[in-house]
């Protein structure tokens, strides 16, 4: 068995299974793999576990989880975390898997954008609708400015010093960065489609007093167009709610329109893809590459239903095949958690 604790940065992390995606299906896969002594590490681009359940509908009830007439997205995630605790999975949150490659000695090398390298015997893709990424507003030509004067996150605040900054949006990201960058910027403008903000009331208050003090500008309206040259932004052409247009001089823009799901780097791992989904065979949910599995919303097969309960089933069958890669010589005996003392020991209930 491998040590599941994370290795210090730079070292290679050895694991039996590397699960990509810590949504409900990735989490339950830990359980099914764990029963077969397959240790798992999980990587997720979000800074918390739960995937869409936690990000999109933490408080919305789900009605089709067997045994739960009604359970919220977050409650389900919490229960799954409790259920997999005995197997001590290691989470690598806020990181995106960039490459998956065969190793000459067998198994796979997986590298994240956070610079972590894993050596794993199997890879389980449980990435749902793909990775959450910032929404790109449909402003014509915006792609020519991305990375030079349009940014969807702030990596180094110093880069905004002395700039004319335009922040677009009305949630916490927009407000937090307004407050953080205002002291650095030459002039900061916040634009939002209405004079109501979703962000924390305290941040809204602070922003409003900066506006009153004349230290920043607040505009109510929407950005329709941008103007500039060679990737350098010069102005945002906006429209107020009465339909009148106005311009804001700007050299850096930060739009915050929430997140959307994109397939992302999965497309470059050499797997067969069909309509942005990964075809699998339905005995083990293995992809076209032996040793790489795909479970949950990201896979496709005849009759596929994008249900959490289907993903649970897929995880159970996946684990049977995955265990054969990890323990090629072990005789597999199917056991029930209700009656097997060895499974109960693993669960810590016996």
């Amino acid at each position, binding site marked *: 068995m491998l040590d599941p604790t994370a290795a210090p940065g730079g070292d290679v992390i050895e694991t039996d299974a590397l699960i990509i995606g810590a949504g409900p299906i990735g989490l339950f896969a830990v359980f099914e793999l764990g029963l077969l002594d397959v240790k798992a590490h999980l990587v997720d681009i979000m800074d918390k576990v739960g995937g869409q359940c936690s990000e*999109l*509908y933490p408080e919305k009830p789900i009605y089709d989880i067997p045994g739960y007439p009604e359970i919220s997205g977050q409650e389900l995630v919490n229960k799954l975390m409790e259920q997999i605790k005995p197997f001590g999975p290691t989470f690598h949150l806020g990181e995106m898997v960039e490459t998956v490659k065969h190793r000459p000695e067998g198994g796979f090398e997986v590298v994240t954008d956070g610079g972590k390298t894993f050596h794993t015997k199997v890879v389980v893709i449980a990435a749902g609708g793909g990775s959450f990424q910032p929404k790109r507003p449909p402003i014509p030509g915006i792609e020519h400015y991305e990375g030079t004067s349009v940014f969807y996150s702030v990596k180094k605040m110093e880069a905004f010093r002395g700039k004319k900054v335009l922040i677009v949006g009305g949630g916490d990201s927009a407000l937090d960065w307004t407050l953080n960058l205002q002291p650095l910027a030459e002039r900061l403008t916040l634009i939002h489609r*209405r004079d109501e903000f*979703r962000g924390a009331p305290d941040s809204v208050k602070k922003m409003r007093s900066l506006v009153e003090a004349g230290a920043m500008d607040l505009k109510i309206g*929407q950005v329709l167009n941008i103007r500039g040259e060679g990737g350098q932004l010069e102005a945002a052409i906006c429209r107020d709610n009465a339909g009148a247009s106005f311009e804001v001089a700007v050299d850096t823009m930060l739009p915050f*329109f929430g997140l959307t799901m994109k397939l992302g780097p999965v497309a470059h791992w050499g797997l067969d893809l069909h309509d942005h989904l990964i075809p699998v065979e339905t005995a083990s949910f293995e992809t076209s590459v032996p040793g790489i599995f795909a479970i949950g919303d990201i896979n496709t097969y005849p009759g596929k239903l994008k249900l959490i309960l289907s993903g649970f089933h897929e995880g159970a069958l996946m684990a049977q095949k995955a265990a054969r890669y990890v323990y090629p010589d072990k005789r597999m005996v199917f056991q029930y958690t209700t009656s097997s003392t060895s499974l109960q020991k693993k669960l810590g209930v016996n």
Partner: protein
Amino acid sequence: MPKITFIDAAGTAHTVEAEVGSTVMEGAIKNGVPGIEAECGGACACATCHVYVDEAWLERTGEPVAMEQDMLDFAFDVRANSRLSCQIKVSEELDGLVVTVPEKQG
């Protein structure tokens, strides 16, 4: 069943039948109306089923509640008649409803 007409970004009208009690979004998805994505499946969590309600119907469809207003912040080119179609419940009263699909969802 009540009929709902979706006018897509190209100006083409798609008239579909929608069950009373279902949502306008579901009527679009079931009938493959282009331009309605409904990424989150109707949880009022994504703003990709954004429509503009025809002026004549605004009174009958009502106002978006606070949660829907918040989610509309994530949509693009939001106007006074913007709604998320997953939040409009189909009723007999809405038979004949006309909505326009924006050029791009979020």
